[in-house]
Each structure stands twice: as C-alpha cells, then as structure tokens.
C-alpha cells in the first residue's frame, strides 16, 4: 500500500490554468514566440511601407510623366531629384521626352515646309504653264504673225515646258528618296575624269551666257566607287543652284578635284554673292529656301536641290559642306576606292 500526500502544486498559470514547469516553459516560449513574430511582422510592415513609399516615389513620378506625355505635354520633366538607380531611368525618360519634343517641332516644321512646297510648286507650275498657254494662244490667235515671232513663241513655250519637267522630275526623285526606293548602282569610276566630262558639257551651256567652267587639280587618278547617274545629278543640282542663285553677271564655276587622306574631294565654287552665314547651316535641309530663292532668276526653287545632293553623297559614304569663299563653295568628299578593289 502506498500513501501519497500532495499539495496543490505551485505552478505558474499559463493560458488560465497552472502547468508543470516543462509545459509552462514550452508554452510560454511558444506564446512569446507568437507575440514576437507578431511584433516582427508589425515592424516589417512599417519598415516595408516606408521603403515602398520611397521606391514608389520615382515610379509615381514616371507614371505621371507618362500620362503628361500621353496628354501631349512634352515640356514638363519628370522632376525626380533622387540619386538612386531610378534617377538614370528618369533622366532617360526626360531625354526621350526632349527628343520627342524636338521631333514634334521638326515634324511641324516639315509639315509647314511641305505645305509651303505645295504652294510653291503650284505657283512654279502655274507660272510657266500660264506662259505656255499664253504663247500657244498667241500663235493660235495670229498674234505671232511672222515666222520669227512664231519661232520666238515656240522657243519660250519649250523652255517653260522644260522648267516644268525639271520641277516634276525633282519631285519624283524626292519621293523615291523618301520611300527609300533609290538603290545605288556603284561602279568603279575616276572622279577626275567624271568631273572633267561634266565640266566640258557645262562649258558649252554657260558659254551662251558668257559664263565658263574652270577645271583645276593635278592630273592623277581619283578612283571612287559611285553611282554615275546619281553623282551626275549631284553635279547638275549644284550647277542649277549656281545658275539660279549665284547672281553673277558672268558665272564662273571652278571645279577642283584632289585627294585628301582616304578621301577623294571635289570643290564646286561659283563667283556669286554667296550665302549669308546664318543661312549656311540650313543649306542642306529639305524644303529650305533662302531669301534669295524668292528673287532668283528662275523663279522659286523647290528647296530640294541641295538636300538631294547631301542625300546622295551621304549614301555614298561621303560628306558635304558649304562655305563662302568669293562665292558659294560646296565641298564633297567621297571614300577612295581600295587599290585591290580597283584592280
């Protein structure tokens, strides 16, 4: 027989009832763990909220900027002044926005230029067309009553028709350029010989008005790979530009070919009044027409001649620049053809 006397145990109460030591410790640890986890979660939430707010600040700024751009406002920058990774993104966004703004302004400028072009072309076409109609009507009505007069009327009408054809050709060419439908047929060519042949042709044309062509440059090979037809157009455009805008009584075109490093260069100079320094940077822009274009000999220009020159030269991998030196000077530089390729 066993007699046991037991007091009410002296135990801590955990969860409303007294518990043995081990159970009380384990349960207390478990409960305190829960409390601690709760505290940690709460603390993390507070810290995370602060962090998220900081991280979202540039994101929100970008979102608002994107909405502004969507609404058409390209002038307000993102406005985030932080020094973290997002500052680079915001800077890139600002840069893109600035680029878009410039493009939009350029596009508006082009649009205006196109509108002006259409108006100009209408005018340019109407003027010779009216002349042609007038002279033909004069002949039909018997105004040109002598063979000399009839010959004169026919000659004027023919030249006016040629002007219209030239204008339409340039427009067609520009259209092909714009649509990228202008492949180059590159063949090995001696630039010196090519320019000399052009000079001979032009000499005959200028001689009628008292002008002349001067060819300079040491006789040497100037091998380049180029599309002869397109380069002929370049020279023709430069010649027409000089004829139209130089303003010289007796036009003198000086063509110089030389080699500079790995480039074959051509200098196309006239003895005209040149171009004002403010207008020089715009000379190769499409649809750009200087003040002199309005008062040129051949009526208004299309604003495409020098743009086409630049387009073709650059398509050949070359460069073109303009300056004043006793008249307007256009300098072209084309890549030399490699010796082995030439052979």
């Amino acid at each position, binding site marked *: 027989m066993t007699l*046991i006397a037991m*007091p009410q145990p002296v135990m801590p109460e955990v969860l409303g009832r007294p518990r043995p030591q081990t159970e009380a*410790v384990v349960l207390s640890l478990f409960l305190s763990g829960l409390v601690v986890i709760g505290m940690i979660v709460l603390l993390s939430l507070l810290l995370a909220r602060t962090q998220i707010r900081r991280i979202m600040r540039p994101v929100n700024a970008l979102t608002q900027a994107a909405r502004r751009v969507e609404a058409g406002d390209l002038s307000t920058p993102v406005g985030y002044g932080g020094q973290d990774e997002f500052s680079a993104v915001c800077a890139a966004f600002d840069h893109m926005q600035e680029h878009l703004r410039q493009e939009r302004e350029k596009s508006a400028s082009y649009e205006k230029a196109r509108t002006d072009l259409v108006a100009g072309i209408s005018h340019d076409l109407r003027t010779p067309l009216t002349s042609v109609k007038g002279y033909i009507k004069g002949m039909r009505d018997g105004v040109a009553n002598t063979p000399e007069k009839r010959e004169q009327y026919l000659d004027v009408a023919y030249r006016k028709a040629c002007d219209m054809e030239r204008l339409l050709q340039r427009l067609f060419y520009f259209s092909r350029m714009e649509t990228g439908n202008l492949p180059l047929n590159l063949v090995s060519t001696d630039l010196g010989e090519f320019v000399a042949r052009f000079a001979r042709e032009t000499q005959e044309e200028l001689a009628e008005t008292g002008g002349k062509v001067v060819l300079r440059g040491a006789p040497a090979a100037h091998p380049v790979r180029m599309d002869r037809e397109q380069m002929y157009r370049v020279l023709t455009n430069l010649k027409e530009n000089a004829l139209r805008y130089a303003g010289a009584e007796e036009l003198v075109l000086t063509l110089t070919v030389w080699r500079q490093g790995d480039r074959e260069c051509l200098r196309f100079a006239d003895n005209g009044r040149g171009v004002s320094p403010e207008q020089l940077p715009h000379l190769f822009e499409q649809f750009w027409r200087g003040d002199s274009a309005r008062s040129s000999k051949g009526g208004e220009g299309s604003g495409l001649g020098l743009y086409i020159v630049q387009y073709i030269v650059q398509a050949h991998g070359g460069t073109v620049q303009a300056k004043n030196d006793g008249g307007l000077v256009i300098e072209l530089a084309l890549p030399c053809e490699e010796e082995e390729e030439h052979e």
Partner: protein
Amino acid sequence: MGMRRRIFLFYTLSLVLSLVVLLGVSSLVVQGVSRFYQERAVPAADERSAQAQEILGQWSESDRDWRTLDRELDRQGYQLLVEFNGRPLYSSLDQFQEEVYRRLSGRAAWPEEGTLVLQDQGMVMVGRRCGA
C-alpha cells in the same frame, strides 16, 4: 543612397532586428519562469513538506481511517492518495493533481521504511509504503 543598397539594408536590418527581439524575449521568458520556480517551489517544499512528512510518518499502518489522515494533511495544504497495487483505495486529489501524479509516479521509488519527499518540476509529493 542606391535603391539596391536600401533594399539590402532593409532586409538585413529586419533580420537582425527579428533575431534580437526573438532572442531577447525568449531569454526574458526563460529567466522569468526559472525565477518563479526558484522563488515559489523550493520554499513551499521546505516549509510544508516536513509537516506532511511527519503526519504521514506517524500514521499507523493498521489504521484505515483515511478521512482522518486526509483532514490532518489538509491542514498543511496537502491532499491524500492511497493506492494498493496501483489501484486507488482513497483519493482527495483533484483532477489536475491526479494528472500530475500519474506523470511523475513512474519516476518515484517509495522506500519500504520511512517517508520520502519528492520534488520534480515544481511538484512536491510526500510518500511512504506501509503494510503489505
């Protein structure tokens, strides 16, 4: 401060803070429970168990008046359990005391003569064997 560094610091700080809080609170809990047993359980065993031990030791083996013994023990704040071959003959233990007794009785080896005070996990038991 870079965003990557900020996030890294945030997570590191959170981790360190969590560990510090967890360790701190656990230490406090363990320390608190230990102190509780040190302060309460040991003095209780010292003061009253001697009285219960004396009452139980003086109880005659032939006397089967468990109620009288229980009342005497009750004055010292003790309840009585009488077992014979593992079966209870008399018990004034409440349910919790019985539960604790079952948990601890396996580890108790009551002496053939005299009484023994057993203290385990804050529980105090005084026991003896008598008769056959």
